[in-house]
């Protein structure tokens, strides 16, 4: 995405860290003021990982890997945190991939899915603005026919981003997606972003509706949707596993966007997710503003999980 983005994201992350909860920073200073590395240092780091939502199993696995490297007796506890960040970076780095837009496909159809309130509509607004700034023409489609004022909300975002806006009379999201694709073709736009209603992954009927949207889009273009983004709220704990698994199985999710990383939640569950599902992480949300979408940096994310300042 845009070139100057990383700097802004680092600054924001730094600010977020400064503000972040006393519990976490308190734990940190304890670790970093340890003169010597001992067994307690690694135990504390393991706990830090748990409080960052990595889950007890993944946290234990990572801590064991660090224990095996025998840092005990080293002079500076920072070394251990750095090593841990390194391990996590290794897991995440292959998945840090920006969203690819094949210039040859037109319109490139992106379906945006996720549980209720995760940030789908906002992410579409940010993404539309981002694409516009790269010179692409964009249309957004209001596929959420359920939530009160969902269409109006997306409309405001379309205006902010300067994107074309499509909404339909129908209550059937699949019909709207189908019509939107036709409209996007007619308008000759580069990218069509389709918003969908939030739905919990354990609701079979609602998941079937998503399947239908995909099926109907394929009728118009066998390759559509070209990407399906799962928007994941960083505040989410271990339930993210069930979410990602089910959405991927049913709707062929191609990548993740992790939102609300400007808060005190760390989103550590994506480390375990990465390990299990290997889904690319395309971008992160760091605010409610139109410019608050950032490329995902494995290293920055890993460092923030173990409480190290971004480099």
């Amino acid at each position, binding site marked *: 995405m845009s070139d100057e983005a990383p700097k802004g994201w680092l600054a924001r992350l730094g600010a977020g860290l400064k503000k*972040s909860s006393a*519990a976490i920073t308190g734990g940190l200073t304890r670790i970093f003021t340890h003169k010597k590395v001992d067994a307690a240092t690694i135990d504390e780091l393991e706990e830090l990982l748990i409080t*960052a*939502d990595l889950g007890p199993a993944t946290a234990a696995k990572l801590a064991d890997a660090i224990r095996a490297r025998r840092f005990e007796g080293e002079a500076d506890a920072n070394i251990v945190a750095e090593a841990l960040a390194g391990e996590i970076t290794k897991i995440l780095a292959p998945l840090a991939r920006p969203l690819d837009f094949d210039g040859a496909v037109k319109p490139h159809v992106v379906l945006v899915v996720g549980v209720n*309130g995760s940030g789908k509509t906002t992410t579409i607004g940010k993404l539309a603005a981002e694409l516009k700034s790269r010179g692409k023409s964009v249309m957004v489609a209001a596929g959420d026919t359920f939530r009160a004022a969902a269409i109006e909300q997306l409309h405001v975002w379309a205006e902010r981003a300067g994107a074309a806006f499509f909404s339909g009379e129908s209550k059937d999201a699949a019909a709207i997606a189908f019509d939107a694709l036709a409209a996007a073709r007619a308008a000759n736009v580069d990218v069509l972003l389709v918003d969908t209603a939030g739905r919990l992954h354990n609701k079979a009927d609602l998941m079937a509706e998503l399947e239908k949207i995909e099926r109907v889009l394929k009728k118009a273009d066998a390759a559509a949707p070209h990407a399906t983004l799962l928007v994941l709220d960083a505040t989410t*704990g271990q339930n993210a596993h069930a979410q990602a698994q089910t959405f991927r199985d049913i709707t062929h999710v191609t990548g993740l966007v992790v939102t609300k990383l400007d808060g005190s939640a760390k989103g550590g569950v994506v480390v375990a997710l990465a390990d299990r599902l290997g889904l690319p992480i395309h971008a992160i949300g760091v605010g409610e503003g139109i410019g608050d979408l950032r490329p995902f940096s494995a290293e920055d994310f890993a460092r923030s999980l173990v409480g190290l300042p971004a480099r």
Partner: protein
Amino acid sequence: MFEGLGEKLGDVFSRLTRKGALREGDVDEALREVRVALLEADVALPVVKDFLASVREKAVGEAVIRSVTPGQMVIKIVNDALVELLGGVNLGLNLNAAPPAVIMMVGLQGSGKTTSAAKIARRLKERDKKRVMMASLDTQRPAAQEQLRILGEQTGVETLPVIAGQAATDIARRALASARVQGYDVLILDTAGRLAVDEEMMNEAANIHLLSNPVETLLVADAMTGQDAVNVARAFRDRVNVTGIVLTRVDGDARGGAALSMRAVAEVPVKLIGTGEKLEALEDFHPDRIASRILGMGDVVGLVEKAAEQVDREEAEKLARKMKKGEFDLDDMAEQLEKLSKMGGLAAMIDMLPGARGLQQKMKGVNLDDKMIARQIAIIRSMTKSERRNVKLLNGSRKRRIAQGAGMDVPDVNRLVKQFMEMSKMMKRAGKLGQSGLMRSMPGMMLGNMPPGGGRMPPGFGPR
């Protein structure tokens, strides 16, 4: 992800052999697995630590019910402690304030505040026949005020007309004035989502809170929330004096450990749960349901409960048979008394009795403690076998001997005998009653005639 857990616990259980009481080693081993279960369920680490420490204290030394394993017993104890921590009695919403009673909704972005506001408004209007007004103070999210307006229309609840460009605090003032003038009973203030670390927005919330003086400030939180729940609960508690929690998306399959984290940190009850996107999907909070969901061990808990019932029933039946034949003797009484003290003493017992709330308060007044049970048992113990079988044998000299043996006086022995006679009489009558009802009335009967030091029972507490 979670499948392995049951198996792992199964392992622990089968390795632990059956013993009379839970030993430290058994408890620790089982609690290690419980720790993992709670963390997988998103209970925040500091809360997990505190919780396990207190459960450990409770569990060590506790008797293991016949036909369950020590590991299963620990799970049952954990479950009960979870239910307790999640809060017993559901008090519902408090609307005791000069109208309009203000309810302020707060929480992170997208947690479900606006939807919950409309759900609550609907319930107050339809069920409680209140006149309700809603106002959106969300000037951040696009179309947020429009969203609340539409939800108001759907539920037939008035919403404050929107004036574009007005600041949140100004909207709050206007809403208060408007609700007052128009005589609404309740005013629900929906606010913008905000991060606990966003100083500026948290200040705004504090200002709104200050000027609107809500009777209820509800922290709306997603059941899927992870470890951050403690930070959120702490921050909102500190800045806007949260009075209750609304847990949303309970219709999902998250284990919901955040409920425990927030309950523990904010020290306020979970008042309501959201169970769907529709406006009627609002329910009262049941601690036991969430507890078994967090622990993910409903089966084990159910099993132990059944086993306990079974033991109770067998003994009740035995007792009933004896009673019918008029065979209830002092040995049986001693057995019942011992059981009473094993079950955690009178206070715990009384607590378990249906309709006995408030009784405990009264009991404190008469200083009725477990020492008394011990004294009664001691008297029975110093009788001979034949005396215990046949109370009629007790003449003056036997009573003196017994009193001496138990380190008490003859009047104490007399009181016990009188109590026993009353009990046997009631027993015969109760033969016609249901057995479980009889078991329930046992402790009451035993307390009936023997106040310590000969003091008087408070009214309503003596024999009937």
